[in-house]
């Protein structure tokens, strides 16, 4: 470990910590965490945003600091618009200039199926008539009908499945079939835990959440592929080592790189989640959690699962993945090297 500026090395290069010794414990821990995340989602329910359910979401700024939340809610109720959810829109603006709210009006099932409702205009008109048209500034309005919402949701799930399938295939082709289930289960585990965390803190589940999950998939697989690449290389160079030992060495060797890359990514995301502006902040927070979990899972979920797959495949008789055994298999047992007979010794 050296911390000289310009030559920082976080983990010593001679480190040989036995990661795989703890793999049973950590797989159990990961499984428990996944189950907890699923339970949170099942019990608390996903906080569907209007992207999937349909409805109206308006981002309205009130330029008068004297206008309070209760007054706004009362005005909306008086206009007979229905139950709305108001959240303050974050950002670094000064509070004395007034505040910005995100007003969300979910679509009632049965209305506005095939076309958008006119609730958005009603809402803005009601607010403007109550507080004065100059004090109410509409930042943005999003109005989604039920039909589109349902389609977006299904497309989101399909997109995740497609990403998993594509990666499964690529890793099976590029590395070996043993590696791909581990990688994909590691990704699924990351997405579920990120989803559980976001549901636990009550963030909305929208199209950008699915985008964040897909990006988490992209990053986590990055880490996992680095470890797999090193495993593949170590196997070729040191074929007599057991897979457990190979995996341990690979993880030890790539530990520096993993930690530094994750740290860089996390720093960038931290900046975004504080300063990115309302829409990006949720996205950045999801990704932050996702990269944290993804780094852990590349070491402690992907690799142990690969070992398990290896064991399973060996029992099934598929042993040819080992390069040395491949060479042995290629050798012809009846091969007899030709005998060179010299008549005379050379001068």
């Amino acid at each position, binding site marked *: 470990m050296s911390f000289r500026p310009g030559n920082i090395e976080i983990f010593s*290069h001679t480190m040989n910590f036995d990661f795989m010794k703890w793999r049973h414990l950590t797989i159990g821990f990961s499984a428990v965490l996944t189950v907890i995340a699923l339970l949170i989602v099942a019990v608390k329910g996903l906080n569907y945003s209007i992207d999937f359910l349909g409805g109206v979401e308006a981002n309205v700024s009130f330029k008068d600091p004297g206008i309070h939340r209760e007054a706004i809610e009362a005005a909306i109720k008086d206009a007979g618009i229905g139950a709305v959810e108001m959240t303050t829109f974050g950002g670094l603006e000064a509070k004395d200039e007034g505040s910005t709210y995100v007003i969300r009006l979910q679509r009632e099932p049965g209305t506005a199926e095939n076309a958008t409702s006119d609730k958005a205009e009603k809402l803005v008109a009601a607010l403007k008539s109550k507080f004065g048209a100059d004090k109410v500034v509409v930042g943005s309005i999003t109005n989604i009908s039920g039909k589109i919402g349902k389609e977006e949701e299904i497309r989101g799930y399909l997109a995740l499945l497609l990403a998993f399938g594509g*990666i499964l295939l690529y890793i099976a082709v590029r590395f070996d079939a043993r590696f791909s289930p581990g990688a994909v289960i590691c990704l699924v585990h990351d997405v579920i835990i990120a989803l559980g965390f976001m549901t636990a803190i009550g963030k909305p589940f929208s199209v950008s959440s699915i985008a964040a999950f*897909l*990006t988490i998939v992209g990053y986590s697989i990055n880490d996992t592929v680095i470890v797999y690449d090193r495993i593949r290389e170590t196997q070729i160079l040191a074929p007599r080592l057991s897979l457990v030992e190979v995996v341990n060495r690979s993880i030890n060797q790539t530990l520096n790189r993993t930690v530094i890359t994750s740290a860089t990514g996390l720093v960038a995301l931290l900046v975004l989640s504080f300063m*990115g502006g309302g*829409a990006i902040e949720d996205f950045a927070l999801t990704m932050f959690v996702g990269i944290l979990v993804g780094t852990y899972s590349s070491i402690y979920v992907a690799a142990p699962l690969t070992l398990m797959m290896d064991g399973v495949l060996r029992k099934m008789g598929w042993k040819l993945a080992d390069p040395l055994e491949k060479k042995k298999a290629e050798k012809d047992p009846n091969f007899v090297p030709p005998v060179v007979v010299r008549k005379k010794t050379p001068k």
Partner: protein
Amino acid sequence: MHRKGCYLRHKKERKKTNVKELQRSSASCFPESFCFKVQLLPFSSDTVMKFKLQVSRVYHAAASLKDEGRVFRNLPLFWWVKVALILIALVFGLAYTIPTFTGDPSAWPRHDSGEMKGQPRKWGHRFVQNWLPDSRISLGLDLRGGLHLLLEVDTEQSIRDALNRALGRAREHATTAGIKVGAVDIKPDHHVEIELEDPAKKDEFVKMVSDQSYLLTFDRLDGNKLRFVPRQTEINTYTSQILQQAIGTIRNRIDQFGVAEPSIFQQGDHRIVVQMPGLQDPARAKELIGNTARLDFRLVLNEHAQDKLEALITEARAALTLPAEDSGAESVRRISQWLRENKKISANATLMLGRQYDTANKAKITAVQPYLVELNPKLTGDLIEDAQATRGQDSIIPTEVVSLKFKPQGAKIFGDLTTEARKSENAPHQIAIILDENVNSAPVVNEPILTGNAQITMGRRLDSELAAKEAQDLALVLRAGALPAAVKIIEERQVGPSEGEENIRVGLLSSAVAAALVILMMLLIYGNSGLVANFAMIFNVMLILAFLAAFGATLTLPGIAGIVLTMAVAVDGNVIINERIREEMRAGHSVKQAFYKGYDASFGTLVDAHVTSAVAGLVLLVYGNASVKGFAITLLAGIIATLFTSYYVTEVIGQWLVEKTNIKRFH
């Protein structure tokens, strides 16, 4: 060469300087992998290290003498070629990125007169205008403000209307030919059942139907019912024609509305995306787009007197359990159908309501008057050549009026229609002007109008400016053409201009801070190669922006977040390479050897890692909505650019540093 004792032999020959021997033996005896395997032999690390140093020196000397392989004393020609390629990429990147940052060309101060008339005053602007390409990064709606609409076109109804019209014409031909046609039933899946009084005449009638519409083919005869099935390919063609026509009409309307850079395109089979950046009045634009503007002229029939008609309507409402206040178009259609089926009105008549709207609140209906008109209009709005909004002269309270001028064919049909209305048996002598299934007016025809001019009176409004705008909008819509089918808005996103600017500011600020932190981290951790990596990262960001500008992709706020994430990915590539170089140095190689080996070994790793990330990015590109697509585009562009910058550019720079300078540590 992996013979046992190979290394011992060369240990003995260490002091000899027989170059040829060394060449012959060393070039084949010391491949790189040998050094790895030595690591596993049970010698102490000191011995191993010393041995490897010797090996590498020998190899280095031999190879450089023979001038082969990748280790050179001087930088080879190939290096200069690489530098040239990178410079070209740099120039390309700068050329496409700079125009975006120089502001709007129409806002540049220009020379008013003289030989430089029209040229911008500042030399920088002149350079940008004359030498650099004209592409700017187009900002998405959440950075610029504007309106985004997703419209669904009701092609079903349109096909049904087309079938109705065709079968109506066929029926007329049949009646003149003496074939009696009974009820016509169009089912939801476009199957048609027609009742024929005389089944023997079926061939003639089938020919008449096929003449009128190519959307149907004859299926079979059931008793005295003829069944027709739809031709799917023709219907598909017709649907795509409707979509194209709708897109053209909407584009016409928007052009006349005066929006800069709108984009309208088809999505899927039935949907149209309309994007209008920088729009000031979204409500008016939405009305303009959704307005079907179906105009037709029909003869008013005199089968029943007014009060009898109202009694029939009440009866129909009771039978269909419709409330008395329900005057919507759909319920009127149902009432008409019920009346036709129960033979209360003739088969070619239909009910239309003339609705009076409240002057203040357009949605409230104050009065309703029923009219019995022809079922199939002979004169429709597509035969209008021009429409202008003018002020009516003929009453004390000025009303807005839209004057219509028909095309020659339309003028002829209008002449025939008014002549028919003038005939004595059509007693009220009225022609109903129907706009969007609402009887706008039913003027009495005093004499046949052969000039091809007509007028539509607009309702009165309290606000004369609003009334004038309404008349202008209607005239615009009639000029641009009626929509071939009804469109519904299924998704709408509006962003105000102030929010757009705010988003840009926030996006730029957060990317700047993130970039600064990442640069700092790389310098602290890696020193010299961190500096090179930072330069590569900035080059990367510039290439992404150039790519966006060159290909006309839009930059959205998530796109800016994508650029920040790409910085992390770019840096990751260099981290992999540098860690590899550090490993090689520890294994005992010289700086140069470690450098080359590091780059060689990490290329495969980089490709694998980036391709798998790109898979996720591609899925995002296909799946996402407009703003997520912006993110996916920057992410993918970043991944492609990263392979170029993090690997290639840093390799070339590092090669120069390592070969030509006395740098002790590159990693």
